[in-house]
C-alpha cells in the first residue's frame, strides 16, 4: 500500500511515494510510541519507555523526520552546578560570613593585622572577603595612622540570595535553569562572576508525530523485512535475492574520521628538500653539539663577537669541551683571525685563544655543518644543502623559539658569480611559489659580497626578508684549502612555514595540538 506524502527537505519540495514496508521495526516502535503519546516527547522518555538503543532511536527519528512522519525540535537547556570553589564555600560558608563572625566575636572591630594573624581565612582570600563584606554593607573599612581597622555595621544580616542559591545548588547538585525558583535568578550572575557557579548547556530533543505519521500508522503498518547488513551468508547462499536491502539516507551527516598524517612542518621541510634535490644538491647532516671552533672561529667570527655571548648561544655543561680538528687547520684559522695569514686579509688584530674555540655549544646555524663539509670536500663542483635544527638562547615568545630549523645551501665551483647566486635564490623562491623577489646589499660576518633577499607577500601586502646570502670570505675558505668562490645562502624555515600555514605565532608550529593536526589539510 502506498501513501503519497509531500515533504520538505533542504528547501526542496518533492513527492514521495512511501511504502510502509520500508519502515523498520525500530521506526515503527518509535512511531507507535509517539502516536500513543500524541504530544511532544523527550528523547530521554522515548528511550526509557521503549527500551530501544540510543543510536537506533536517534537514527530512526532522523529518518522519520526526513520522511515527514515526525517533527523534531531541539531546545537548549541550561544546567547550573557549583564549581569546586563553590562547593568549598557551601560547606564552610562565604569568606565574608567567616570574616563577619570573627569581627563580631572580637566585639565588632578588629585590625587587618588581627585578621591575618588569626588565620581564619587563607591570606589570598582575606582581601576578597573584605571587599564583599564591604560591598554588602556588613562592615566599614577605616584607615588611621597607617592601620586598617574593620568595623561591623550589620552584626547579623539575613542570608542574601547568593547564599541561598549556593546552598540550594549544593543540595540539588545540578539544577535545570528553568526549574530554579524565580527569586534566586538574580543571584546566578553574582555567583558566576565569583567563579562559584558553572553553567552547562545541553540540547534536548523533542519529537512529535505529524499528521502524515498518523495517516501512515492508520493505513496499517507492516514491519519491513528488509535488511541493513549484507552478511557473508546472504552473499554466499545468494539469499540476498530474496530479501530487500534497505535504502539508507546517504545524505545524512556522518562522524568525521581523520587519517594518520605527517606533521605540517615535516611536509614543508620535505617540500624544500625536494626543491634542492630537483636541482642537483646533495643533502648533508652534522652534529647538533658543536665546537665554538666550527660554529664561529672557522667562519671568521671574532672571539669577542656579540653572537658568541652567553645570552645568544647555548653553552654546555656536559660535554663542556670539544676536541679541535687537526693542528694545521687550527693554526691557519688562528693566524687568519690574528693577522689574515695568507688569505690577503688584515685579520682582526687580536690574539686568538684556543680555549674559547674548544667550548662545546649547541650549533647556532647549520653553516657549522656546511663548513665542516667544505673542509673535507674541496674539489669542485660541490652543491650541498641542509634543512635542520639550530639553537639560540632566546626567551620564547610569539616571534622567537630557542630551537628552530634553518635552510642552507652552497655552491662551490670555479666560475660561479654573485649574479649566479641571485639566480639560484630566484629559482629557489620560484619553486616555493614566490614570484616577486628583490636583492639588496647586506652584511654577514662570513660573506662578502653579501645579499639580503626580500619577497613580496600578498597577505601582508609587504616585502618580507627571507634568506640571507653571499660569497664566503676568503678568510673562511682559504684556511680550509678552498680558493674558488663558494656561493652560500640560508634562512629561517619557520617564517616560510608560518606564511604558508597562515600562522601568526611561531609557537603554534610546535604545539602539537591534535585538533589542529587532525584538521589541517595536507599541504598540496
Amino acid at each position, binding site marked *: 500500500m502506498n501513501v503519497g506524502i509531500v515533504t520538505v527537505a533542504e528547501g526542496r519540495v518533492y513527492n514521495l511515494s512511501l511504502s510502509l514496508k520500508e519502515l523498520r521495526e525500530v521506526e515503527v516502535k518509535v512511531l507507535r510510541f509517539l502516536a500513543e503519546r500524541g504530544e511532544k516527547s523527550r528523547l530521554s522518555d522515548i528511550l526509557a519507555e521503549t527500551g530501544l538503543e540510543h543510536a537506533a532511536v536517534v537514527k530512526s527519528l532522523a529518518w522519520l523526520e526526513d520522511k515527514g512522519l515526525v517533527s523534531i525540535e531541539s531546545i537548549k537547556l541550561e544546567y547550573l552546578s557549583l564549581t569546586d570553589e563553590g562547593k568549598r564555600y557551601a560547606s564552610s560558608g562565604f569568606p565574608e560570613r567567616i570574616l563577619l563572625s570573627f569581627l563580631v566575636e572580637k566585639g565588632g572591630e578588629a585590625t587587618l593585622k588581627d585578621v591575618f594573624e588569626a588565620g581564619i581565612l587563607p591570606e589570598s582570600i582575606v582581601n576578597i572577603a573584605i571587599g564583599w563584606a564591604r560591598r554588602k554593607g556588613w562592615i566599614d573599612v577605616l584607615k588611621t595612622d597607617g592601620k586598617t581597622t574593620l568595623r561591623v555595621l550589620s552584626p547579623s544580616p539575613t542570608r542574601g540570595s547568593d547564599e541561598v542559591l549556593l546552598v540550594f545548588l549544593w543540595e540539588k547538585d545540578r539544577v535545570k535553569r528553568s526549574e530554579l525558583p524565580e527569586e534566586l535568578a538574580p543571584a546566578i550572575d553574582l555567583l558566576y562572576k565569583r567563579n562559584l557557579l558553572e553553567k552547562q548547556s545541553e540540547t534536548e530533543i523533542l519529537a512529535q508525530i505529524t499528521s502524515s505519521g498518523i495517516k501512515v500508522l492508520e493505513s496499517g503498518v507492516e514491519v519491513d523485512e528488509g535488511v541493513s547488513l549484507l552478511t557473508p551468508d546472504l552473499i554466499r547462499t545468494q539469499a540476498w535475492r530474496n530479501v530487500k536491502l534497505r535504502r539508507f539516507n546517504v545524505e545524512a551527516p556522518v562522524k568525521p574520521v581523520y587519517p*594518520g598524517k605527517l*606533521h605540517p612542518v615535516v611536509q614543508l621541510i620535505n617540500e624544500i628538500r625536494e626543491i634542492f634535490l630537483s636541482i642537483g644538491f646533495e643533502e648533508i647532516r652534522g652534529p647538533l653539539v658543536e665546537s665554538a671552533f666550527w660554529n664561529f672561529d672557522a667562519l671568521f667570527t671574532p672571539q669577542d663577537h656579540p653572537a658568541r655571548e652567553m645570552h645568544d648561544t647555548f653553552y654546555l655543561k656536559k660535554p663542556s669541551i670539544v676536541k679541535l680538528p687537526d693542528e694545521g687547520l687550527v693554526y691557519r684559522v688562528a693566524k687568519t683571525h690574528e693577522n689574515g695569514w695568507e688569505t690577503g686579509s688584515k685579520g682582526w688584530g687580536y690574539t686568538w685563544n684556543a680555549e674559547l674555540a674548544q667550548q662545546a655549544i649547541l650549533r647556532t646555524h647549520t653553516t657549522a655543518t656546511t663548513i665542516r663539509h667544505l673542509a673535507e670536500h674541496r674539489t669542485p663542483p660541490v652543491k650541498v644543502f641542509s634543512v635542520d635544527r639550530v639553537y639560540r638562547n632566546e626567551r620564547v615568545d610569539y616571534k622567537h623559539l630557542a630551537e628552530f630549523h634553518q635552510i642552507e645551501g652552497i655552491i662551490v665551483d670555479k666560475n660561479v658569480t654573485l649574479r649566479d647566486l641571485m639566480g639560484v635564490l630566484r629559482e629557489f623562491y620560484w619553486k616555493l611559489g614566490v614570484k616577486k623577489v628583490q636583492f*639588496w646589499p647586506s652584511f654577514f660576518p662570513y660573506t662578502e659580497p653579501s645579499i639580503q633577499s626580500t619577497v613580496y607577500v600578498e597577505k601582508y601586502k609587504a616585502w618580507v626578508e627571507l634568506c640571507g646570502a653571499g660569497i664566503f670570505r676568503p678568510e673562511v675558505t682559504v684556511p680550509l684549502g678552498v680558493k674558488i668562490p663558494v656561493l652560500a645562502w640560508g634562512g629561517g624555515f619557520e617564517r616560510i612555514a608560518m606564511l604558508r600555514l597562515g600562522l601568526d605565532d611561531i609557537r603554534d608550529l610546535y604545539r*602539537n595540538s591534535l585538533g589542529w593536526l587532525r584538521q589541517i589539510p595536507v599541504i598540496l
Partner: protein
Amino acid sequence: MPTLVLKVKRMSELLGREVTVEELERIVPWLGVDIEDVGSDYIKIEYNPNRPDFSSQEGIARALKGFMEIETGLPKYTVNPGPVVLKVDPSVRPVRPWIVCGVVRGLKLDEERIMEIIEMEEALDWAIGRDRAVSSIGLHNLDAVKPPFKYHAVWPDEIRFVPLDMDVEMTPKEILRVHPKGVAYRRILEGAERYPIITDCDGNVLSFPPIINGALTRVTEDTRNIFIELTGTRLEAIFAALNILVTAFAEMGGRLESVAVEYTDQVLVTPNLSPSRWMLNVKSANKLLGLKLKPEQVAKCLEKMRLGVESVGEELLVLVPAYRHDIMHNVDLIEEVAIGYGYFNLEPTFPSTVTIAAENSTQKLSNKLRMIMIGFGFTEVINFTLANYKEHFEYMMVKGDPVRILNPVSAEYDILRSSLLPCLLKVFGNNKHEPLPQMIFEVGDVIVLDDEAETGARRILHLAGAIMHSEANFTEIKSVAEGVLREIDVQDYVFKATDHPSFIPGRCAEVKVRGNHIGVVGEIHPKVLNNFELEYPVGAFEYDLQFILERE
C-alpha cells in the same frame, strides 16, 4: 641593536639639496642599510654592524652624496698639528694599555647636535668597543682643563673627583660600587689592582675610563673646543672609532687638530686620517660579480662609494678613507664595486654547475618510517630536542646522564633529550580535551653523550609511537611495534620480558636484534601517567634505529 634617525631637514642640509622621505626610503637600502620605521619627516634606520661610520647622520650623508653623485671620490679632511700632549704612564699596561686622542675646535653645538653626538658615542662603544670592553670614548670640554694630560693608573681609593651625574666627590672604588655607570661597566675592570685615570697638569680628573667622565669637562651647548680620548685593549679598534668620530665632527664643521700621545717607547700623533692604499684587479672583480666592467667603470663605482682611485688600468690603486674600519680584504672592495654599480642593476643568472643530487640516508629512512606509522593510523608530532631534566627522568622514574646546558635562558630547557617517549606523553598531556583514541608518533633525533665522538655527543635516530584510549593495552602496541620491524625488513628480532621503571611490571618487553638492545614496548606505569597528569592507559614503544643506517 641601536637605531639612528635620519631627519629630512638635517639630511637636506648635509646633502646640499632638498630630499624627501620617499627618496631616502628608496635610496638608503641600496647602501645595505635596513629601514626600521618611516615617519612624516624622518626615517629610522637599523645600525649596520659592518659600517660603524653609519652611526651619525653625517656619516650616512657622506655616503649618500657619493651614491647620489652629488660629491664622489675620497672625502678630504685636514688635521692641523696641535699643541696638546698626553703622556702615557706604563702603569696602565695591565689594565687598559692603549689611548689615542684628538682635538676638535670651533664647533657650534645645540641640544640636538649634542644628543646626536652622545648617540654616536654609544653606538661606537657598543659596536667597535664591544660594549666598552675593547674601546670606549671620552669627550671633554678642552677649555675646562689644562694640558699636558696624563693617562695613568691609580689605587681604588687614591683620588677623589666629581663624576658626571653626581654632585659629590667620589673615589674610583666608590664609583664602581654606587654610580649607575660604575655598576653597569665594573665587570670590565674586574681583577684590576689599579684603575685607569686621565688627569690634567693640575691633577684634575677628566675621565675614569671606561666607566665615567669627570663633571668638570662636561660638554654643553657652550662648548666650542672638544678634547677626545679613546682608551682600550686593542689599538686597531680605538683608531677606527677615533677616525669615525673626528670625521663626523669635521662634517659638522669642526676643525681637527692632532694630539701627541707619548708612550715610553713611541709617540703616536693622532688622529691620522691618511687613507690606506689597496690594489684591486679589475678582472678578479668582474669574475666574482659576473660582470664585464671596464677599468673606468669600476673606478666610477668605487668613487660613488667615496673611495679614491689613483691610477686606472687593469690594476686599480684604491684609496680607502680612514673611517672605513670594515675594509679588510680585496673582496670588501669588490662588494663596494657591486653596491656602487647598484644591486638593482645586477641581472640574475643561473650557474651551469652540474651535480647529482643525493638524499641524506637518515632523512630518507625517517621518511620511510613516517609512511609506515601513518599507515598504522598514527599522527606525527614534532618536539624540541631541548628538554627538561625533571620531565625526562624524574617523571619517567628513570636515571640518566644527558647532554646538559650551562646557561639556559629558561628553566624549561636544561638538557637535550635522550629519549622520545617523555615528549609523546607530554603531547598527550596537552591534548586531554581531544577525542580518543589518540595515536601519535615521532621520528627524530635524540642526543647521547659519547666520549668517542668528536664533539662528545652523538645524534641518534629514534622512532617512538604511543596510543592512548580507555582500553589501550600491551598487545595493541606490540602489534604496531612488531609491524614496524617487519616493514623495515628486520627479521631476527626478539621481544624479551623485562622490567623497566616507566612501564607496568610484567607488561614491558625489550626488543633485541641479534643480541643488541634496540628499544622497549609496553604499557606505561600508572605513576608515570599521574606524573604527566594523564587519565587513560597508554601503550608505547621506542626504538633506536641507528643500526638500520649502519646496516645499509
